[in-house]
């Protein structure tokens, strides 16, 4: 069974390396500022003791006040997992950095989140709609759609 790491402990390690990058942390997840997301993701992937080499899931949630992008990470070497989150408060242009260069799995998942939720992943090599067709108006999984 994959061991879920305590988010607070992971947050401490991140805060030590990048002060001010943690927005919130609890047992279940680490919330980082969207500005420092790429740095933190790179740190989580390339640090030997953490070694999160596998992105199992990437999704987005609409909390009406803000969007939250959720990353489920797993380390195949250590067999442990962590949940990383980033919030964007700009409803018109919610943007987080793309992590495709770290995990290839993020490619389609980010396109899906862009398609259905309208999150803009800055630095994505091919950010276009995945499930809906070109020319579709709006992002249907948003709370204020329709």
């Amino acid at each position, binding site marked *: 069974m994959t061991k879920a790491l305590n988010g607070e402990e992971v947050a401490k390690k991140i805060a030590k390396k990048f002060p001010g990058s943690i927005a919130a942390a609890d047992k279940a997840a680490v919330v980082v500022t969207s500005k420092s997301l790429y740095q933190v993701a790179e740190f989580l992937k390339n640090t030997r003791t953490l070694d999160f080499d596998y992105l199992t899931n990437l999704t987005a949630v609409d909390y009406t006040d803000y969007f939250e992008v959720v990353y489920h990470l797993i380390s195949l070497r250590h067999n442990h997992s962590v949940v990383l989150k980033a919030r964007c408060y700009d409803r018109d242009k919610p943007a987080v950095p793309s992590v495709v260069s770290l995990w290839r799995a993020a490619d389609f998942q980010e396109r899906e989140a862009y398609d259905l939720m309208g999150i803009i992943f800055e630095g994505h090599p091919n950010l276009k709609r995945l499930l809906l*067709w070109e020319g579709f108006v709006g992002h*249907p999984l948003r709370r204020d759609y329709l």
Partner: protein
Amino acid sequence: MPLKEIDIAEGLKINSLMEASQQPIPDPDKWLDEEIRRNVLITTVDYVLDWARSRSLFPLMFGLACCAFEMIGAAASRFDIARFGMDIFRWSPRQADLMIVAGTLTWKMAPAVKLVYEQMPEPKWVIAMGQCAISGGPFRESYSVVPGINRIIPVDVYVPGCPPRPEGLLHGIRKIHEKIIRESIKKA
């Protein structure tokens, strides 16, 4: 027996059979009625054509969602669609004349369905199987689902259910048969 004698025996057998088989054996037709024995059959062209068409429908292999499994169930040995002359589901629309739209049709899939329908040769029939194909079902208000396939292609028979049981589909196919039997070449 020496080899040469075997050859001679074989040759004699062939020659005698050839000699005895100069005339064709008459077909056993004593069991037939007098009129049929003289090859006289009286019927209408419509009757024969509709009879032939309705009993050899070729459905198109086509499944969009969970209804497809009920369609597969109808095709397999338990419900056995072959009883109605529909042994083979055709992969190519050009060899099919019945389209069973089994499942949810999304707007992204709709152009493909329309194209496949247009590729089927006339005459052709369509069954809308399940609530999604009939009206969009639970996804009717959705942004991505076609609210009823009759927006895309004309439908002959609607089979309700979510999903319909194989018996339901077979009933729908029987309805198609009834529809075909009433057709006339005069109108076509």
